[in-house]
């Protein structure tokens, strides 16, 4: 069985930044993801949710935390 998106995202980000990440950890304020990570993170989100993200309309704050990523890109999921 596949992990829920929240678990996959927290594990991937945690491996990148070298520390544990919670749902509400401020990813940008604490500089846990870089511009290099961002492109890869978007690809992972697209794979997890099964459809592409509209990059032209990415809203400020949409990557503020894992919780916000889930709210922005997985709103249709009931189990995250």
């Amino acid at each position, binding site marked *: 069985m596949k992990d829920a998106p929240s678990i996959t995202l927290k594990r991937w980000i945690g491996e990148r930044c070298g520390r544990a990440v919670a749902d509400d950890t401020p990813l*940008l304020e604490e*500089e846990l993801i*870089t*511009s*290099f*990570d*961002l*492109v890869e993170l*978007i690809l992972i989100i697209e794979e997890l949710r099964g459809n592409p993200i509209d*990059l032209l309309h*990415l*809203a*400020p*704050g*949409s*990557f503020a935390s894992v919780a916000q990523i889930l709210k922005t890109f997985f709103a249709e999921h009931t189990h995250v």
Partner: protein
Amino acid sequence: MCEGLTWTPAGLATLSGPLALLHERLDALFRRVAARFAAEEHHIPPLIDAASLARIDWFGSFPHLASFVTALDPEPENIAAFCRQRSLIEGAVLPTRTVPVRHILLPAACYALYAAHQGRQLDRTLFLTTRGLCHRRETHYEPLRRQWSFGMREIVCLGEAEDMARFITAADETLLALAASLGLEARLQPASDPFFGEAQGKRLMQQIDPVKYELVVGDLAIASVNRHRTLFGRAFDITCKTRPASSACLAFGLERWIAVILDRFGADPAHWPALEALS
């Protein structure tokens, strides 16, 4: 063309008379803003070493803006060969063998300040200011509004993360108050830097996490407030109380302020605002 402005299509402006004085008066105004933060004045060179800019991957983000500085290989025969050419070809000199490019013309004044503080261990937040002659290659130029060579006054806050929010708030308020006192219709809006095509991650990062706001009059950005977090602190090994130093800066484009003053008040110096009455 405005009296007192001599312009070349290469994007180079020479100011004289009242326009040159206005340039100095604006800088004096921005130095008074810097004095509110007790910012320490710095005199900086117009060049910066490429290695410093490589630390922040500047060449990955803005290679198209770079103005490279080089020189002839000093070997006498190489210089003699250059001299024998004697004439320009379509307005260009053709260097013979050159030395490796280790410097570029400074593209933003504050870079020189981070480089000058490389390796420093700060025990408190510093406020710094400088005026730089900056250079950016562009696809087109316009007098006072988009120049290859232009003046930039910057105020930098470098140190504890907790001090950056206060500085940015003060900088935002200062910009809006300055614009209002000059009767300029201005707004602060998120900026979009002209990242080179392959720097997609940086462009997306700026989109989701706006760390740069510009003061815009009409369609012209005349100042910006930039939050760098620890980008420069980490790149230049600057710490504050053992943590990587955070930084933020407030930048004024001097010629662009002249442009909006001319637009708003006209070319007659008698109608220009009394900048000395502003603090």
